[in-house]
């Protein structure tokens, strides 16, 4: 009877040994390859530090001007341009400029990295059903596994700082762009593809001239999602030593500073809204352009 009332659990010592074994082997792995892996990411670190310094050392009116110009090119909407400039000025006025620039730097690098990794992977998935079948569960895992779980191995491997933070953010933020690239390419009209095949296009031409352009709005939705998720991870990344708006939020959490938390939280919201609207408008404009051509 005991078998049914008490779950047959692994023997305590064996379970402990197993956990210890896993920890130990990872520790050995990081002892062996940690420095090498760190060196591998050095260019990324260099780029991040450079970008952050650039953002911090440029005069603020120039930064705001650049942001306004980017907003204009992205959205062609005066409301957004004025809104973003105003939001950044407010952030600066409330003394969050440096933290905000650090966050913008890491989000920018993270988005670039995610696009560089995500789009080729998405293309691969759309080309091969087998790749899709293997990558999808991995993406599911990346999106659902609590971030604290992978912070531990990242810390052991790379220590604290910008690069481990960046990787933690990317693990969480890269899935949407992979998924939506895959989806976008798979949803391209079959008849269009037949037409292009009939013209004798190579696979490369088919991909770059037809599939990706037609999938761009969907891919852009993925980029948008990636940016949003990266912003959501800013606080977690701060827990492993990434400077930015997350640091004051952590301070606010442990000391119950309502105003500090709220202000920095709202700054993240402002960044998110600006990035979201600009990239969405851009995505829509691409679509409009296509519709115009089709008409």
């Amino acid at each position, binding site marked *: 009877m005991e078998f049914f009332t008490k779950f047959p659990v692994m023997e305590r010592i064996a379970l402990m040994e197993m956990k210890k074994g896993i920890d130990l082997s990872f520790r050995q792995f*990081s002892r062996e390859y940690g420095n090498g892996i760190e060196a591998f990411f050095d260019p990324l670190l260099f780029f991040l530090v450079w970008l952050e310094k650039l953002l911090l050392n440029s005069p603020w009116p120039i930064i705001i001007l650049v942001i306004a110009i980017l907003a204009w090119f992205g959205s062609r909407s005066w409301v957004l341009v004025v809104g973003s400039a105003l939001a950044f000025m407010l952030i600066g006025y409330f003394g969050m400029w440096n933290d905000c620039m650090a966050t913008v730097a890491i989000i920018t690098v993270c988005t670039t990295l995610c696009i560089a990794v995500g789009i080729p992977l998405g293309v691969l998935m759309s080309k091969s059903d087998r790749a899709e079948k293997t990558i999808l569960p991995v993406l599911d895992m990346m999106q659902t596994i609590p971030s604290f779980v992978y912070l531990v191995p990242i810390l052991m491997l790379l220590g604290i700082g910008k690069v481990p933070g960046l990787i933690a953010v990317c693990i969480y933020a890269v899935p949407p762009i992979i998924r939506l690239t895959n989806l976008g390419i798979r949803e391209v009209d079959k008849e269009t593809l037949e037409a292009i095949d009939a013209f004798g296009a190579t696979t490369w031409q088919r991909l770059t001239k037809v599939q990706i352009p037609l999938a761009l709005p969907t891919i852009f939705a993925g980029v948008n999602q990636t940016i949003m998720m990266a912003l959501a991870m800013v606080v977690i990344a701060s827990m492993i030593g990434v400077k930015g708006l997350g640091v004051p939020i952590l301070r606010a959490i442990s000391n119950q500073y309502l105003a500090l938390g709220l202000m920095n939280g709202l700054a993240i919201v402002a960044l998110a809204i600006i990035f979201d609207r600009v990239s969405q408008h851009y995505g829509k404009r691409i679509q409009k352009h296509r519709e115009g051509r089709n008409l």
Partner: protein
Amino acid sequence: MNTFKKIILSAVIALGSAAFGGIANAACGKVVVASQNWASAELMAEVDKFILEKGYGCEVELIPGATMPTFTSMDEKGAPDMNPEQWANAVYVPLIKAVEEGRLVIANKAPITGLGEGWWLTPGSIEKHPELKGMTAVEILEHPEWFPYKEDSSKGAFVGCPAGWGCQLANAQLFRAFEMEKKGWVLVDPGSAAGLDGSISKAAESGNPWLGYYWNPTSIVGKYGLIQLDFGVPFAGRENWDKCITVAEQDCADPKPSAWTESEVNTIITTKFAKQGGKDIVKYIGDRTYPGIVMNGMLVYMADNQAGGSDAAIEFLSKHEDVWTKWVSSGVAKKVKAGL
């Protein structure tokens, strides 16, 4: 009348049995001990539970806690009865008041030896730069190049305290007091406890230099053999520490260089428990001193085996008999050993 008699009768019986029980096990009764949410406190609570139950016949219940909530509850409500590891700096003023007003008793002024906060080095630092050996913090601060900062190798990295912790302010002010920025240092914010621990284990595992803030007793100190630094300057007085080092930069602009304040850890019990438990138990609590090395060893054991407080308590009681048998009478020691 009948019911009244019954009440008296049962009360007499109850008293009698209590008195009888008292002969057998020193009238200990029910005790609630706070088990705070870090390893050394958990271990101490479990060891106390074991010894009080097996050795003194108490009925011990452990309840989870943390520094502030546990203290507030003991002060205001008189429960739990005992906190094995109360860090006094956080509750300095109210604790003195509670003792003066007779609500709480400091039963042990130093339950763990060699504890405290301060600045530490990894052993790898000394291997790479043997000159470091025996140097004080003030001397080391002249050599930021020995602790290169990953993100800007022209600077030295000093790993401070996670954002939001009390020690963050203290480290930031000392950073200013020692004019470390001018000397070429960067104050690195590790972000969280996990970040701080991670940066130490990463440096220690790969044999890299590391200089920063940490505290004892901890498994990290025991496991990696961190070396505590002598500051090279004396403690510059309570006035400087309380009014300047531990406040934000805008509240005090000119912190003076100072060694870290002495940390005081007490075992505190409620007055009620001091009376109820009796002389023997109070004496046990007063004599119960864990040598720092033993405590760190236990914390390493807990971390390596991912063991909880109760497993570690058994390990401690069976491996370190020489330590704990000094705390109790030989009769009690025998009973505890029998209970293992």
